[in-house]
């Protein structure tokens, strides 16, 4: 098979993203024409477009991008195809922090939400990394299994907390995930996070690409693997934390998207970042369109949808006998 060139892939994905985004803008409870945006921005339908649909589209795209980038980073961090912030407890940690915070009486404004989920994600990720560390370095199996169990452990605590205080309805959005309540403030936060993450990757692209090598080789090439790993972990925490704060616990985007890109165009991390981001955004858009149209006027739970897609994908990867047991 003739390999597709990187720029071709990027252009293709960008075109698909634009068309899907336009489709997402038009669909919803009611089909709206795109021309409303400039023809009648003051009418009711026009205002719906400007104040509800556009922020939603923007945040869907950016959450997809953030999640897939964090998956890509995590996979090179652990040198393993089966890694993703939702599997490894980072998302669950952010969720638990949010629930604890609001049970303690903090008002969940956007700023506190972001802080809480960042702290939660950081603590959970550190814990999983500590579980996975051995004297020989990061043990992949411990990372995955330990992370999975730790993740469900934290989710249990979160459930118990919200159940005891009779606040399950309040946390419903957090638990099932979704974009139905996003505003421009969310968009701004997401935008900031995405810029920070992408800029850091751009600055450190050479070092990050060397993460997949073992430490001695990387060192002999002039990289500092310890520092790079810390930076990559921080980036994962930032992207996962912000995504959870905006859209709840959406899993598996980070798992599948980098894998698909790697299948079509196997290459270094620095070259694959752009197509991964684009495909992540496309996937999130499509899932969101399905979630809001399939059973309109009610919305399907986004986390369940992505868990189903991701579960099937993970099964396929395992069946193919991926390099799961490779150290």
């Amino acid at each position, binding site marked *: 098979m003739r390999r597709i060139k990187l720029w071709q892939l990027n252009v293709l994905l960008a075109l698909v993203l634009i068309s899907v985004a336009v489709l997402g803008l038009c669909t919803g409870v009611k089909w709206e024409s795109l021309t409303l945006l400039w023809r009648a921005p003051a009418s009711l339908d026009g205002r719906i477009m400007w104040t509800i649909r556009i922020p939603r589209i923007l945040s869907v795209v950016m959450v997809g991008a953030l999640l897939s980038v964090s998956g890509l980073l995590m996979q090179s961090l652990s040198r393993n195809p*089966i890694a993703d912030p939702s599997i490894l407890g980072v998302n669950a940690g952010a969720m638990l922090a949010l629930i604890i915070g609001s049970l303690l009486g903090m008002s969940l404004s956007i700023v506190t939400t972001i802080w809480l989920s960042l702290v939660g994600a950081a603590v959970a990720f550190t814990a999983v990394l500590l579980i996975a560390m051995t004297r020989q370095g990061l043990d992949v199996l411990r990372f995955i299994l330990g992370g999975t169990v*730790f993740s469900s452990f934290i989710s249990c605590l979160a459930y118990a907390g919200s159940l005891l205080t009779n606040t399950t309805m309040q946390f419903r959005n957090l638990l099932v995930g979704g974009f139905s309540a996003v505003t421009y403030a969310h968009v701004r936060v997401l935008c900031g996070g995405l810029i920070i993450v992408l800029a850091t990757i751009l600055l450190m692209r050479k070092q990050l690409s060397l993460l997949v090598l073992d430490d001695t080789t990387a060192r002999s090439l002039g990289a500092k693997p310890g520092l790079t790993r810390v930076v990559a972990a921080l980036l994962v925490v930032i992207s996962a934390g912000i995504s959870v704060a905006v859209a709840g616990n959406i899993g598996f985007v980070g798992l599948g998207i980098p894998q698909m890109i790697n299948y079509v165009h196997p290459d270094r991390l620095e070259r694959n970042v752009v197509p991964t981001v684009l495909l992540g955004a496309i996937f999130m858009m499509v899932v969101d369109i399905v979630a809001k149209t399939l059973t309109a006027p009610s919305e399907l739970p986004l986390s369940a949808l992505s868990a189903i897609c991701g579960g099937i994908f993970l099964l396929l990867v395992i069946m193919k006998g991926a390099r799961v047991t490779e150290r």
Partner: protein
Amino acid sequence: MSKKRVTISWLGALGCLGGLCLLLLSMGDIHLSLWTTTQTLLGLSSDRVANLVVWDMRVPYVWAALITGSCLAVSGLILQSLTNNDLVDSSLLGVNAGASLGAVILIGLSGLVKTISVDRWLPAAAVVGACISLLLVMLIGKSGTKMQILLGGVALTALLNGIILMIQLRMDSFDFDKILVWLSGSFWNTEMAFLRPYAGLTVLLLGATWLLHRELAVLVLGDQMARSAGVNLTTVKRLLMLLAVAMAAVAVSVGGAISLVGLMAPNMARRFCGSRIQVLLPVTCLLGCVIMVLATVVANNLFLPSVLPVGLVVAVITMPYFLYQLFKG
């Protein structure tokens, strides 16, 4: 392993179980003294309140805990012997999630078609779900390593829980709490009339497992040894697998998806009394009961007057243990 130690672990487990059951019966919203509880149990008390509380409100919880505990523990032991992997249990393999999905689908159907009786068909639906998911996992793990089976189970659980979440939200979008029964486990129906058939079924399945304990012991030695010991491998394996699935399904029907009891009980039993199956099997069963009764005591009393789902308490107890087991090796 000396005989003395075996006797001690037997007596210890039995004593623990008895004490915990008594505790479960006496503690709660209405506190009874241990002496009153014992009297009531023996039928010597004429106090109507005590009789009502013990017999009608708390004894069903004991039954539910015993049923789920013994079923999960023994099914975990069987699955561990079958896969030759100490880190396996019905919840990790996705069997519990499959059974939950079966139950949830049945409940959803009964909302649409009023003639379906949930109580009657629940075990059947759970067994079908559990069978399908175990087959899927085995299919994945056929060519793969132990870890691939485990990861396959993890993936399958995520997938099935996603489907459960969807169905539950479609059924009744206001009753979000209902999902928690099947996702995290709790005793959702504690009427004796509901529990009695399950208790009978449990005794039956445990008896059948005991009849097969010699074959189970040989299986642990590996396929070749088992064959040379004159065991019909395929039949025995199929039978045992069916038993494990049926027990997991019974446990799920009574208490939803309760995690990792089947992992913890056999491993603890092995530490106490070695791996001779005729000792291990009953001790495992007892320890499973101990874990479940303990979890029920905590769940019912920790945050009075609200009652926690018992599965959450079990998860908090057992998951650190799983991590410890995973990293010991």
